[in-house]
């Protein structure tokens, strides 16, 4: 029996349409719109102004706190303006807009394809460089990577868990990176292991990617301490706590972080970015994203520069299908609909999913039939039906006692509910309020 996490979980249709498409390079945009907040935590501070010349890889916005990340220019050219621009949620946020001119990189970035395996930096240097390079979790949560590498005093990491499950349906970017850049990923993992001072790394991959499992397992034999762990395909295995449960058989207690059980989780894409930052001096300004959808002409995987408009990648994949009703940024389970195709792709863009009307239409909400399905699929062992009611009734104290903050917002409950109740929407609302109350108490 293949391993998986201990409670709950669902298995939606996989729809990995773009799995066979090798990563292609998206043309450099004419104008790049680079938001200064592309990560969880405090937005970076813009340090360029209108008229400044920038090169590829240059810092254009500086991290403004511990949980924050530098932003680098992904293109070369002139800063056209620093202004509020609509982001994917429709709110206007500060962005640096650059008129692109040629493709001039900073000299110290190594653009060759050669594999550099020797790791010369010390632990401290690695963590510092990861921070300087603006690396954030590339699984979609965009948590600054150097923060996770700084193990709090008194705690020790034992195992580095690499999240390569790609449990969201449709998405294939991690899958392709594993097939095409396995060696680089392994060196990246070794660098992360050195930074965390651990001897062991486990790469969790779901068994719907047999080629990736085979390839990674074979490449891993060249590196010591790295092991591939094939997992049963089940959503939301990419959740940190679920992945730890699946690969290490350890349960992270409610309210605690993975380090509590000696684990640190990083995404495979992040490991690749760490390799590039440390061995090639290349900060994070490009990444791979999947563009997919049933009516799309060419579901495919693209390496893009941060700040490229969404419309460019759609164009490259064969244009917007006529029946598109919704464009989701990220996977279908946790992604969010975009308000416009003019918004830029960012560090957190792992995919774009174009859905037709009949795939998106929400059915009418009916009364809860007390079937308990939401309870049985919740990977955190919560009672979603109850949390929804409590959130609606604004019973924040009971919500807190019922561990609403444990919800990982995976959406399994809403997905399964036969009465199509918007469980997660309300739970999120409750979480927001309870979070506020808890912060106010501190």
């Amino acid at each position, binding site marked *: 029996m293949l391993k998986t996490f201990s409670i709950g979980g669902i298995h939606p249709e996989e729809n990995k349409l773009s799995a066979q498409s090798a990563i292609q390079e998206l043309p450099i945009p004419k104008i790049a719109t680079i938001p200064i907040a592309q990560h969880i935590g405090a937005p970076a501070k813009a340090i360029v102004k209108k008229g400044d010349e920038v090169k590829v890889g240059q810092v254009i916005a500086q991290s403004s706190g511990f949980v924050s990340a530098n932003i680098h220019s992904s293109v070369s050219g002139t800063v056209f303006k620093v202004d*509020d621009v*609509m982001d994917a*949620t*429709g*709110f*206007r946020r500060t962005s640096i807009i650059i008129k692109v001119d040629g493709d001039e990189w900073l000299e110290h970035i190594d653009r060759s394809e050669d594999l550099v395996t020797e790791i010369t930096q010390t632990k401290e240097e690695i963590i510092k460089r990861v921070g300087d390079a603006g690396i954030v979790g590339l699984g979609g949560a965009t948590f600054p990577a150097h923060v996770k590498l700084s193990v709090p005093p008194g705690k020790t990491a034992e195992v580095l868990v690499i999240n390569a499950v790609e449990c969201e349906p449709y998405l294939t970017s991690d899958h392709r990176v594993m097939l095409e850049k396995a060696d680089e990923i392994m060196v990246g993992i070794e660098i992360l292991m050195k930074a965390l001072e651990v001897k062991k790394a486990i790469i969790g991959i779901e068994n719907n990617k047999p080629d990736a499992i085979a390839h990674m397992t074979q490449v891993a034999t060249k590196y010591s301490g790295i092991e591939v762990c094939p997992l049963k395909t089940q959503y939301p295995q990419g959740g940190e706590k679920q992945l730890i449960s699946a690969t290490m058989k350890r349960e992270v207690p409610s309210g605690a972080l993975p380090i509590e059980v000696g684990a640190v989780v990083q995404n495979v894409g992040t490991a690749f970015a760490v390799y590039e930052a440390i061995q090639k001096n290349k900060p994070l300004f490009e990444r791979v994203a999947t563009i997919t959808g049933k009516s799309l002409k060419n579901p495919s995987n693209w390496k893009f520069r941060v700040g490229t408009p969404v419309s460019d990648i759609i164009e490259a994949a064969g244009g917007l299908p006529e029946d598109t009703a919704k464009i989701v940024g990220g996977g279908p389970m946790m992604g*969010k*609909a975009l*308000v*416009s195709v003019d918004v830029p792709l960012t560090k957190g863009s792992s995919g774009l999913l174009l859905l037709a009307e009949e795939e*998106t*239409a*929400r059915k009418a*909400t009916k009364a809860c039939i007390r079937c308990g399905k939401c309870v049985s699929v919740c990977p955190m062992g919560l009672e979603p039906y109850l949390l929804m009611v409590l959130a609606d009734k604004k019973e924040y104290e009971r919500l807190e006692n019922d561990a609403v903050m444990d919800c990982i917002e995976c959406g399994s409950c809403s997905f399964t509910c036969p009465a199509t109740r*918007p469980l997660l*929407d*309300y739970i*999120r*609302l409750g979480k*927001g309020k309870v979070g506020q109350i808890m912060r106010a108490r501190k």
Partner: protein
Amino acid sequence: MNIIVITILALCAIGVAAAIILYFVAQKFKVYEDPRIDEVEEALPAANCGGCGYPGCRGFAEALVKADDISNFNCPVGGAAVMSHVGGILGHDVKAADPTVAVIRCNGTCDNRPKTNIYDGATSCTIAASLYSGDTGCQHGCLGLGECVDACNFDAMYMDKETGLPVIIEDKCVSCGACVKACPNSIIELRKKGPKSRRIFVSCVNKDKGGVAKKACSVACIGCGKCVKECPFDAITLENNLAYIDYNKCKLCRKCVIVCPTNAIHELNFPPRKEKPATKPTAATVKPVAAPKAEAKTEEAPKAKPEPKAKEAKDGTSDNK
């Protein structure tokens, strides 16, 4: 036989003993309650709306009785009459607070503010606001899902189907502020009712720069500052590209209404303006580039002015039909 008598007597004795103990315990732990609390509660309207800031009328009564000075307390439902009655009971002087009423500070009707996308999620403004900016180009405006209407306990609000905006029924609104608290975009404000219910306010909360605001909504405040300059009483301030009229300073002269190039300033319950030709050119010369649609509205607006703004909006839509 005997045993029955003894049992009964014994039980009686225990009962009496228990009663005596309970009596003394009750005396010992007796909570003294000021009888005036009941009296004050009686005087309150029993709406239990929470508009006073206390959980229900009883809570408010307790707070009133405890307070040394009740001039900062107000029952929005009962208003000045109730507060002075309460003052009488408690022996305090109360000066009447100006009555207030809720106003909707957004005029982004479907005509003024075209939709750019469709939202089909949970029907709660708070949820929508936490997900995205709303289904129009204006990230500040009304989301139109009616959370405020649900919050109103006095049937003083409804959603206007034509405009997609909430409407306050002024006679029913007791100014409890429930809608103000409910709205995630802070669109509703309690304003001084004003003489004969006449009010002037900026019916917009858009803080974007002029061009952006105007593109998203034809009646948005673009922060041009014309009203600020025009106001003879210094009642208008401009902050974050948004004008705000201080209702304590405003003398209801209506000068600002005329100069506003986008018609973002609303006047409520005024008699119709007579010198129509005089108002028109001003508005037109101030901003000749105004979209033709907005100009047409300017022309209609004076006619519709005697009615509250909801009606005005309705007129606009019926004209379109």
